[in-house]
């Protein structure tokens, strides 16, 4: 079928129970460009982009692009010749493509035609011209790991100066570099340099078996370990033709919603703290601790790592713990409602939250934003909820998720969306716990040689995408985990413009993006 009338690319639906995905192949770079233009025209977004080396199979290189459409995801592939692997720059249509394209070059060595050819993930750790994801890369060459220069965009004018921050930041937080160009305390421009957390996860996955892949993908971004585990499981299940039982799917949703609430509770506390209300931190962190202790009781791990596995779920929570969980949902719901009233009535807090770090829906669309940051601008996009032409995957289709939105686009909006989502997820948890269907916990997943799959999950931060391709032996030939932070980091650069430097920590926390997820 054609997804757009005027772009003759034939798409076929991916089988299975996961989020709706259509797969297609672009004949050449022009067709990819045409398709990207049609996606942008229709209000769609760029969801992920990665490259692969398939020369060992007698082919060339390959570029995979995933686009988010109203009805689901279009997974488009472009094959590139081994001797001249160049693809058209997509960043004019989708600015979020810029860093992804640069990362593709750093890892696989296939070039885009855009003007920004600065390295992104490669700092000084390995030499230019050596590409870790090429099959013939071999051991990394001897190389002195020296700090590398980076060509930041300079801002001129009288009184303009730069503040460099990082990679090590002042708090207990992941590393990254922020270069502020300021006049006085006003931010004229922020440019990020990331990649400090790059640990070569994709290379580690290459050649791993399915179970090992799950362990690795579950550690791409620890705060979203369950979302990644589910997206990976969905990709593997789509590839191998396995459908998890309704019970396993319900338990996965229970796990994912618990992860969402855990992170929202933590963020709400930190946001209070960054606006000098230490009371908020103490209260929300108390609730979060109660929450993760309950997760440990249910699934044996405070963050429920390795609980979602290909084929189903690894642990069966016992009935007593589930009953206790429902009770805890009620108690936490009451306390959060009380705390929300305190936050809303606190003039000092609202003064810091309102109009700070604002972005609008047009910018959210331009940057292909998903998740909290998008919904806080009024974009109604939640992979768990129905929208025109889109049916959410089970078990969400039956739950009738009400997505939280707010049109203000500022810190206050991102706080409000988090509060609303806590209450909605508490409701979902009660429904899931009470109506758990019977069935197997976990089904056998027999690897299918050369099979491929794509998994998409609405994590607490936004949309997590995992693409998997197996080799002849049923091991992982290529795996790409994609974090929603790829799209949101560039949007953060815009959110701080015109605000003052001391508001940056608050704005940054209101997005709370993953460094590790982006740096992989």
């Amino acid at each position, binding site marked *: 079928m054609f997804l757009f009338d005027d772009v003759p690319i034939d798409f076929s639906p991916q089988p299975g129970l996961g989020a709706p995905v259509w797969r297609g192949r672009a004949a050449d770079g022009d067709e990819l460009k045409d398709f990207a233009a049609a996606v942008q025209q229709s209000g769609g977004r760029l969801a992920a982009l990665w490259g692969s080396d398939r020369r060992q199979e007698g082919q060339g290189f390959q570029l995979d692009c995933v686009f988010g459409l109203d009805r689901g995801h279009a997974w488009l592939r472009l094959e590139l010749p081994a001797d001249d692997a160049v693809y058209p720059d997509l960043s004019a249509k989708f600015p979020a493509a810029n860093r992804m394209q640069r990362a593709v070059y750093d890892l696989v060595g296939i070039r885009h035609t855009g003007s920004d050819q600065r390295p992104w993930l490669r*700092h000084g*750790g390995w030499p230019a011209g050596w590409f*870790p994801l090429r099959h013939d890369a071999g051991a*990394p060459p001897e190389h002195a790991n020296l700090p590398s220069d980076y060509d930041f965009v300079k801002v001129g004018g009288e009184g303009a100066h730069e503040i460099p921050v990082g990679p090590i930041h002042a708090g207990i937080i992941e590393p990254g570099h922020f270069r502020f160009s300021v006049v006085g305390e006003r931010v004229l421009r922020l440019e990020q340099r990331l990649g*400090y*957390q*790059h640990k070569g996860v994709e290379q580690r996955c290459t050649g791993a078996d399915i179970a090992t892949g799950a362990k690795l993908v579950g550690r791409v971004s620890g*705060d979203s370990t369950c979302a990644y585990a589910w997206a990976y499981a969905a990709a593997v299940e789509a590839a191998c033709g396995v459908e998890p039982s309704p019970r396993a799917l319900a338990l996965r949703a229970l796990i994912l919603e618990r992860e969402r609430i855990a992170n929202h509770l933590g963020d709400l506390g930190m946001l209070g703290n960054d606006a000098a209300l230490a009371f908020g931190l103490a209260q929300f962190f108390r609730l979060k601790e109660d929450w993760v202790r309950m997760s440990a009781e249910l699934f044996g791990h*405070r*963050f429920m790592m390795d609980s979602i596995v290909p084929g189903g779920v690894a642990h069966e929570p016992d009935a007593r713990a589930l009953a206790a969980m429902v009770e805890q949902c009620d108690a936490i719901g009451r306390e959060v409602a009380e705390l929300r009233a305190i936050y809303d009535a606190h003039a000092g807090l609202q003064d810091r939250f309102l109009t700070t770090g604002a972005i609008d829906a047009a910018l959210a669309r331009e940057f292909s934003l998903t998740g909290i940051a998008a919904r806080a601008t009024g974009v109604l996009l939640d992979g768990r909820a129905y929208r025109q032409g889109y049916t959410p995957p089970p078990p969400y289709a039956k739950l009738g998720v009400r997505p939280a939105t707010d049109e203000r686009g500022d810190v206050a909006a991102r706080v409000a969306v988090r509060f609303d989502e806590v209450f909605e997820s508490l409701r979902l948890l009660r429904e899931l716990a009470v109506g758990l269907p019977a069935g197997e916990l976990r089904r056998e997943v027999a690897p299918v040689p050369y099979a491929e799959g794509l998994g998409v999950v609405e994590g607490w931060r936004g949309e997590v995408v995992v693409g998997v391709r197996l080799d002849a032996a049923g091991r992982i030939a290529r795996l790409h985990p994609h974090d929603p932070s790829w799209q949101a980091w560039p949007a953060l650069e815009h959110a701080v413009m015109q605000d003052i430097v001391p508001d940056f920590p608050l704005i940054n926390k209101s997005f709370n993006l993953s460094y590790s997820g982006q740096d992989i």
Partner: protein
Amino acid sequence: MLQLLKRIVKTGLVSEPAPEVGDAKREIDRLNDEILKILGRALTIREVDAGSCNACELEIHALNNPYYNLEGRGIKFVASPRHADMLLVTGPVTKNMENALRIAYACTPDPKLVVAVGDCGCGCGEVGRLFGPNYATVGPVEAVIPVDVKVPGCPPTPLTLMQGILAAVRTR
């Protein structure tokens, strides 16, 4: 404001006793004695994430929640290694963080303690092996700077982290 005060009163004190290390003596008493003897008044920690997946950071954050109340016990996280007695380092140390970690270590005044956190930072367990050295990572923390105490776990719980911090203080 009234609601806020009511909430504070209603919550009361929820801090739990500090964990024990090895023997039965309440470690918090021993810690206080030793901190006084070794470091003067209190212990300051600079946390350095040198390549973690951020799960270890979530648990380190939890140390400051009212249950574990690390700051209430005189142990404080500081913004600069120049203010720190101890570096609490998570890993695996990436190539892109190797230099920054060396600089942070050099900036920490002597006598200093280093605690490596997590299976990746300690280079142990299945996860430590999965995240062993490759083109992008140097290896566990001890591959880059000297380590006094290791706190394994994926991630270690706040309780194990507290035990590790206390154990490191006891080494001096």
